[in-house]
C-alpha cells in the first residue's frame, strides 16, 4: 500500500477530477447555476496519523455521508462537510428563502442526496476508467464531530491506510464555497492499486 507512486496518485487525481466534473454537472442541473468542483489533492495517509488536525478540520459539527461499496475492492467512502456549509449549500440548491434553522428539517435527506451525487460520480468515473463494476449501499447521513467520525471509520477498517481527498465546491453566482473531505477506507486497497497498475501498464 505504501508503494503508491507519483503516477498512481496522478491517475487517481484524474479519476476523481472526472468524477468531480460529473458531480458538478448533476448539481448544476439541480441549482440551475454553474457549479465548480475541483480535487486539489489526493493523499494516502496512515490511519494512525489521521485526525481532525491533520485533515485541517475545525472543532465544529460535521455532516458525514457514507456509502459502503463492493466490487474488485470493498470500501467505505465518507464525505465530510462542515454542518453550516452543508446547510448553506443545500439552502442554495433549494433556492428558497428559508433560514438555516428551517433547513435543518430537510438537512438529512438533502445531504444524503448531495453526498450520493458526489460519491456516485466518483465511483462511476472509477468504474468507467478501470472497467469494473461497483455495487453500493444507499447513503447514510450522520452529524458528529470530525474526530468522532474519523474514530468510527478507523474502527471499521482493518487497513493501515486511508485515502483522503480534499474537494472544493463552489456555486458560481451565489458565491457559496465549501470544502469537502472524501475518505476512502478499504480492506482491499491493494486491489485498487493492481487496477491502477493494469491501467497504467496499458498506456506506458
Amino acid at each position, binding site marked *: 500500500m505504501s508503494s503508491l507512486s*507519483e*503516477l498512481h496518485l*496522478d*491517475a487517481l*487525481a*484524474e479519476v476523481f*477530477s*472526472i*468524477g*468531480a*466534473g*460529473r458531480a*458538478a*454537472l448533476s448539481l*448544476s442541473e439541480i441549482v440551475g447555476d*454553474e*457549479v*465548480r468542483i*475541483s480535487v486539489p489533492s489526493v493523499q494516502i495517509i496512515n490511519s494512525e496519523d489521521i485526525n481532525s488536525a491533520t485533515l485541517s478540520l475545525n472543532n465544529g459539527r460535521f455532516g458525514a455521508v457514507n456509502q459502503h461499496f463492493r466490487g474488485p475492492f470493498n470500501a467505505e467512502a465518507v464525505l465530510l462537510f462542515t454542518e453550516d456549509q452543508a446547510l448553506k449549500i443545500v439552502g442554495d440548491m433549494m433556492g428558497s428563502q428559508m433560514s438555516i434553522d428551517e433547513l435543518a428539517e430537510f438537512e438529512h435527506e438533502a445531504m444524503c442526496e448531495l453526498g450520493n451525487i458526489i460519491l456516485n460520480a466518483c465511483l462511476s*468515473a472509477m468504474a*468507467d*476508467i478501470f472497467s469494473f463494476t461497483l455495487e453500493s449501499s444507499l447513503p447514510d447521513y450522520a452529524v458528529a464531530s470530525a474526530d468522532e467520525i474519523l474514530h468510527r471509520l478507523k474502527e471499521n477498517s482493518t487497513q493501515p491506510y486511508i485515502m483522503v481527498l480534499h474537494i472544493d465546491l463552489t456555486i*458560481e453566482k451565489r458565491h457559496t464555497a465549501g470544502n469537502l473531505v472524501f475518505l476512502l477506507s478499504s480492506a482491499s486497497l491493494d486491489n485498487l492499486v493492481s487496477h491502477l497498475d493494469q491501467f*497504467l501498464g*496499458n*498506456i*506506458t
Partner: protein
Amino acid sequence: MDSPIKKLLIVDDSKVSRMLIRSHILARRPEWIISEAACGEEAIALIDNDLPDYCTMDINMPGISGTDAAERMLSKYPSIKIVIFSANIQETHQERARLLGTILVAKPVTEKSITLALNCFSDSK
C-alpha cells in the same frame, strides 16, 4: 499537398492524462509529432518556438484556465486548431468553447473521445 505529419501539443496538468491522450493518438496517427505542456502558461511560451498544428487543452489547471490559454493562443496564432478536453462539461464551458470556435470533448480520454477530437482536427482543413 498537406503533409500527413502533424504537430500536436497536449496541454494537461495530469501526467496520466497526457500519457493517455498521447498513446491513443499515436495508436491512430503514429506519424504525428507530439509535445506536452503541464499548464496554460507553459503552452503559451512553448508555441512561440514550435508552432503546433493541433492542440488538446484541459480546462482546470494550475495558473490560467485552459479556455483562457486557448483564447490567448488563438489570438496570436489563429491557425492552431484547439480541442478542449475537460471533465467539466457544464453549459458555460460548452458555450465558451463554441465562442472560441472549437468543441468541448468530455473526459475520460477514451477511443470515443479521441475520435471526436480527431474529427474536429480534420474538419478544419
